[in-house]
């Protein structure tokens, strides 16, 4: 009779968990810089959710740029950590980073040689200090959650290649599903990884009978989480495709000139070289699953990044996923066994070239993946102006970036939504005095061809009065629909 399964961890497991928690704590303490812009926006969403604001619920599901998983995790962490006076964003990132490290060390321990154990640390030091941290290792960025999810997926798929245990496939599938909740780039990466993983599984198993059902097991969480995004949009936004509309509108005004920039072509070259290394390793080494999965990342992530830049949207998770993929590349490479001496030499040469390239490319770029901070009108300035004539008026804001720029838990001065319904705003303006803040039409805070916001910015509306224009093209409009029975013009209507 097998020993009864222990419900609690063994002593060794407890010690291991304690060690990794300590690592997370150290990462938390030494997180080099402040929260990234994306993290601040996710924090604002979590806070809005906690205070029951409508825009928080809308932002949780209605944006592919700011995916639901980081916001949900911040929501879980935020309340208890507030009591302890700890930063939820930093702790979440530290835990995600510790998890990534843990997966890397486990892979190294399983497949590599003992003298290679410090390799992950050396690689991170290289990226952090020699390459000037291009992948936001020292920043609290929500992308770390995507990176941790991807690391989990990658780890389990490598393990599956090792022993073909169904549980690894199930765990990998669950991580793949979670990746779907990490933003547009992560969704594409998950979809491509699914196809590649299936092809590898089929090749490894050989017999069709053994393969039967595995596409379902691997794909069901992915499809379900993808479907969830639309279901949630239907439930909260009353439009299942709401999260795609922003992207769709932006596609019409893509800034293709961006592709010609030197920095972009350098980045692209770097990733193409990485792809070459992976192609050699996949063809001639025993780690075909890992290397082929990384090919998907190396092919897709730079393209996603460039597309996001061209569309002027936040490339959610691309920076950290790229960094993670690069670390995994060197890691897998270190423990791969090559078929022939020639292929091994070739692969090593390519890997060294890639590392050298990194020295050339990244130190010259200042935070290539980081979003530029958009200019905005300070909230105090807006309130001061309105208070002079309309002390009871509230400012209506549309769009997630704007809502998170002007956080207002009691919603006394700012009221935010993600969707614009002209009639609804009209009705509200009848009940109370409202202002409307419209950012410049430069594609940063809403699509250049947004049918409503761009149009208001350009032509206004009959019921809107442009009260003030701020530098940079920011407009403050006042709704002039007087509450019913209070307008001096009522008798003329």
């Amino acid at each position, binding site marked *: *009779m*097998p020993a*009864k*399964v222990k*419900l609690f961890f063994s002593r060794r497991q407890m010690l291991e968990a304690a060690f990794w928690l300590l690592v997370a704590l150290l990462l938390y303490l030494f997180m080099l810089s402040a929260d990234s812009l994306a993290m601040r926006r996710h924090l604002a969403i979590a806070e809005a959710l906690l205070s*029951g604001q409508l825009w928080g619920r809308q932002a949780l599901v209605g944006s592919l740029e700011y995916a639901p998983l980081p916001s949900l995790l911040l929501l879980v962490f935020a309340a208890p950590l507030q009591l302890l006076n700890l930063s939820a964003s930093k702790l979440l990132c530290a835990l995600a980073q510790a998890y990534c490290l843990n997966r890397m060390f486990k892979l190294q321990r399983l497949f590599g040689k003992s003298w290679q154990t410090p390799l992950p640390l050396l690689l991170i030091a290289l990226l952090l200090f020699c390459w000037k941290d291009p992948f936001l290792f020292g920043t609290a960025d929500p992308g770390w959650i995507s990176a941790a999810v991807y690391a989990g997926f990658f780890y389990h798929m490598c393990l599956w290649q090792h022993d073909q245990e*169904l*549980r690894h496939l*199930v765990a990998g599938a669950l991580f793949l599903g979670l990746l779907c909740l990490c933003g547009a780039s992560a969704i594409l990466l998950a979809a491509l990884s699914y196809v590649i993983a299936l092809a590898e599984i089929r090749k490894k198993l050989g017999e069709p*009978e*053994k*393969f*039967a*059902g*595995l596409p*379902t*097991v691997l794909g*069901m*969480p992915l499809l*379900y989480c993808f479907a*969830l995004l639309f279901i949630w949009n239907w*439930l909260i936004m009353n439009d299942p495709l709401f999260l795609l509309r922003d992207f769709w509108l932006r596609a019409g005004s893509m800034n293709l000139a961006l592709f010609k920039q030197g920095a972009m072509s350098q980045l692209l070259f770097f990733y193409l070289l990485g792809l070459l290394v992976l192609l050699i390793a996949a063809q001639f080494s025993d780690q075909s699953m890992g290397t082929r999965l990384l090919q998907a990342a190396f092919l897709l992530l730079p393209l996603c990044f460039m597309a996001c830049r061209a569309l002027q949207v936040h490339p959610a998770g691309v920076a950290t996923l790229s960094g993670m993929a690069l670390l995994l590349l060197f890691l897998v490479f270190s423990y791969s066994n090559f078929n022939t001496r020639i292929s091994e030499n070739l692969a090593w040469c390519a890997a060294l070239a890639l590392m050298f390239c990194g020295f050339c490319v990244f130190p010259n770029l200042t935070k290539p993946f980081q979003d530029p901070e958009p200019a905005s009108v300070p909230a105090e300035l807006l309130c001061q102006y309105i208070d002079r004539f309309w002390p009871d008026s509230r400012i209506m804001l549309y769009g997630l970036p704007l809502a998170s720029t002007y956080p207002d838990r009691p919603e006394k001065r700012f009221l935010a939504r993600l969707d614009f319904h002209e009639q609804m705003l009209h009705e509200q303006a009848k009940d109370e005095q409202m202002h409307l803040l419209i950012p410049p039409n430069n594609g940063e805070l809403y699509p250049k061809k947004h049918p409503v916001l761009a149009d208001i910015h350009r032509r206004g509306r009959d019921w809107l009065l442009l009260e003030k224009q701020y530098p940079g093209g920011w407009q403050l409009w006042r709704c002039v629909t007087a509450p019913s029975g209070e307008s001096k013009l009522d008798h003329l209507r």
Partner: protein
Amino acid sequence: MQKKYKLSGNLTGDILNPRGFPQATLVLCPWQRRALLGFIALLLLWALLNWRQELLLINLALTVFYLLAMLHRLFLIGLSLRYSPEMKFSAEQLARPPNGKEWPSYMVILPMYKEGAVLPELIDSLSKLDYPKDKLDIRLLIEEDDEETRSVADQLNLKAPFQQVIIPKSEPRTKPKACNIGIEWGEADYLVIYDAEDKPEADQLKKAVWAFAESPEEVACVQCKLSYYNPDWNFLTRCFMAEYANWFGLCLPGLDLLQAPIPLGGTSNHFKLPILRQVGAWDEYNVTEDCDLGLRLFVAGWRTRIVDSTTWEQACHVLPYWIAQRSRWVKGYIQTYLVQTRDFFGMHRKLGLWNSFQFHLFVGGNFFSQLINPLYWILTLGWLIFKPDFVSQFFPLPIFIMGSICLFVGNFIFAYTAGIACVRRGVGRLAYYAALMPFYWILMSFGAWKGFLQLITKPHHWEKTKHFANPESVFEHLEAKE
């Protein structure tokens, strides 16, 4: 003269414990009846005083229950995926008896009623059992008034180790009563029970003998896995297969790992015969006597193990029969739950805190969730379509979060694990039916409600599962019935 064991009739004169242990003679014992009436009265009174608060608290309790059931199921499945606890034996091991001398004697019982159509196939599959014939005693338990099966059995001209045992007509007319009468006499080391349509793997008895030999003394029962040989007949059989694969391939092995009470499956239970008799064998009043026996063995200090050997059964593919079968299972689970909790504190003392928790979730939760699921489906559907404002007052943030987890994560897990189980069971081609399991759950709830209502009206009625020799005979049968 062979020794005769008394395993039927009322021996004590106690209506609740006719053979010295609690049996399902009555649905509720006196205190349970009083408690139920008191609970209903309390609900009514509370509704009069503050029905909103009452609904809120009921909703909270049900949501917590769903969440716990989901986590428990997830835990069991995670364990069985990680550790693969079934006992496995190699061909070399099975080539010789575990003691090195001779194989122990085995009694095989086959309760049947109106199974003439499948009897030849059954005899054929049992003749293929890889076990010394002189150590076998195969008993066909045929009801006195079952002319159909008797005539087929007579025509087959059965020889040893097969023998017919005629079960005299008496109440209650249930399978466990027939089993108890069937084992009242005769000696054997081990016993196994099969259904009329079963096709056990040829080496199953040897595997069971090895499993007993390699287990500690306290292991009194070995449960083999059940699976279906006709999963591709229609939607129902496909989903049924996925459900069985999940139950026997993931859930029960998880319970086995935790050494928790295991509700036995209806057939392919191998017992140490003396111990089976010692605990009183099956409860003839319980319509899921197998589940009850598994729990009774556990309470008496005996353990059950799961062995990696499969008995192939016929999945019921006709909806009315399927619903009838399901209703019997749910009715039996409720009976078992009520019987086991008659000595409420005693049961918890004997099982311990953790096993009691698992018993409530796995046995109680099993039928309870099937009964209340329709309520929540209707509520969810109504909320999605009409979005009524009043619903939100019963879902404050903590309940809303738990409810959302159950809705979006729980339902997915229950469906997804069916797909995993199919792959693990070797029927991966059915894995995508996991996505259709919610429709199957609706049917399960139909059956559950039928069973629940029948518990009130006909508590001991045995909904017989009809078996067919081949798919065509189903239609012949239905035509004949019309």
